[in-house]
């Protein structure tokens, strides 16, 4: 049965700082500190493929890397609401639809989509080096990110029990 709460770690384990998500998923799963209604998934996917993972969930925390292109230092963690990512009004992604568009599509197709999605994003420095290690600043943010994800999971779980 689909668990109501999901920590969805996106990324790519073989590309430098993009390994942040999969590494966070590994630590979370090994921690055994997550309440039972919370599932952790690492998925190197985007666009339409996210629909399958999100359908039927109540709340979702997405752990991912981000490059804002501004002066945010690498390793900086941000908690973002989905509303911080406006719906994809432009067809400019090189091949996929965006997360907000995927969600809207799911809703219009009658799928049960999460009522709340939050994003725990780390500012990345290197997303281009295959087989490269995570940069030190991004690596250093891992433990903090995992702690925040566990906190999110516990709060989400409590909200279900209330």
């Amino acid at each position, binding site marked *: 049965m689909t668990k109501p709460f999901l920590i969805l770690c*996106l*990324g*790519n*384990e*073989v*590309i430098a700082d*993009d390994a942040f998500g999969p590494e966070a998923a590994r630590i979370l799963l090994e921690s055994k500190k997550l309440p039972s209604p919370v599932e952790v998934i690492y*998925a*190197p*996917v*985007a*666009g*339409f*493929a996210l*629909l*399958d993972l999100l359908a039927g969930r109540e709340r979702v925390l*997405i752990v*991912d*890397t*981000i*490059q*804002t*292109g501004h002066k945010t230092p690498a390793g900086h963690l941000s908690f973002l609401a989905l509303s911080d*990512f*406006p*719906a*994809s*009004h*432009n*067809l*400019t*992604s*090189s*091949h*996929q*639809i*965006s*997360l907000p*568009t995927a969600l*809207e*599509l799911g809703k*219009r*197709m009658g799928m049960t989509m999460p009522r709340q999605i939050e*994003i725990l*994003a780390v500012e990345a420095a290197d*997303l*281009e*080096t*295959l*087989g*490269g290690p995570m940069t030190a600043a991004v690596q250093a943010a891992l433990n903090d990110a995992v702690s925040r994800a566990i906190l999110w999971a516990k709060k989400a779980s409590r909200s279900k029990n209330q």
Partner: protein
Amino acid sequence: MNSIVIDPITRLEGHGKIHLFLTDDGELANCYFQVPELRGFEKFCQGRPVEELARITTRICGVCPDAHHMASAKAADAVYGVTIPSAAYKLRSLMYNAFFAGDHTTHFYALAGPDFVCGPDAPPAERNILGLIAKVGLDAGKKVIAQRAGGQRIIEIIGGKKVHPVTAIPGGQAKRITKEEQQEMIRIGESMVQFAKFTIQVVNDIVLANKTYVDLILSDTYAHKTYNMGLVDENNKVNFYDGKVRVVGPDGKEHAKYEPKDYLEFVSEHVEPYSYLKYPYLKKIGWKGFVDGVDSGVYKATPLSRLNASDGMATPLAQEEYERFYKTLTGDHSGKIPVNATLATHWARVVELVYACEATLDGAKDEEVVSDKIHTIPKGIVGEGVGIVEAPRGTLTHHYKTDEQGIVTMANLIVGTTNNNAAITMSIKRAAQDLIHKGVKITEGILNRIEMAFRAYDPCFGCATHSLAGEMPLELILHEAKTGEVLSTTWRDSTGKIFHQN
């Protein structure tokens, strides 16, 4: 000279930049297209067992992992000098056609279709898959999702995993298929063929029935006469998984037809100082710059060029569509006159989608897919191998050398988008030349029409695997060339609003 920079700032899918240099009287003088490339691939592969690469290289592209899995597996077969059993060949082909059916569906309905269904000048808020569904009907959205899910299910059955298949190994396949799974794949294949027919109807009713769109497809703004590359079977029909590489000129004459292992005799790579990405060209003709024509070595490897490089499609409905495509655009149904209109690539993709769906059904019905004889144990090692497949966005080449233990010592890739690097640059330049002039206000519609020039290639810039935002804001900065002073900045945010600052 002034310069305009179109800077698409994607978050994770790469950050291509377009530089447009304008003369003092406001006309386009030159165009530079820059994209980032993943670094360190060769080093990443060196020292690994070659059989591992079919699983690892799926991670270098979140868009076409199946293509890398197949090209890598074929290269590894060649490294071990092993011919895979017929059943394994059929399983790989079946999975690969199902992958194409899903991938081409995404591109047509989510990325290309809205330009034609909603219109290239429609407000950005409407010009997307949601706008497309609003126009074509909610049922279309459900069909698209079901089509993609069907393709993924076949990949899961044969490839072991939905997204990143793992079952192609040197000598064949690692997973057998049950009769129940075969029946499920037949049902999916039948549904896919129905979807293909539905898509043909969408193209007919909404695109071809609108003369404005047909004129746009055929306009000089989006035309290039380059060579065309694609894999063909023994009858010169389009094949995605296997065959010889055929190259046909803009005049329709065959330039080359070669075995994948010989690719270095026919393709070379030009380097420009401003770009990480190389520019492959036809070696025997040579690099003559960013120009088209029979004397230029520039070639394209796209759905359109695959059709141009072939003599037709191997399935009946796709062959009908192939003939209609050429009859409509050249007046001759045979396909012997190449179509050089870049925007016709979208229609060509639909012809390929029809083929992929029919081939999936045919492949699923083949009794041999449930055979136990799916693997030949390699007994020696050649130490070098090339694997070529057609990725949805172009010919994909994996080339490995190994030591006697099968440990990789050299790896080279030419990915789909790289093949088209020169042609994409030329297409952007042509579109910009026609659209940007002195005194012309740069609107969102103009930005979109320039983007359409490269969107037709379905480019896969960064090979990163995911995108939360996925939007690509555009920024145009007009400089006074001599002093570098910024004269004005125009940008579009992710909601489609245009801002202008002097």
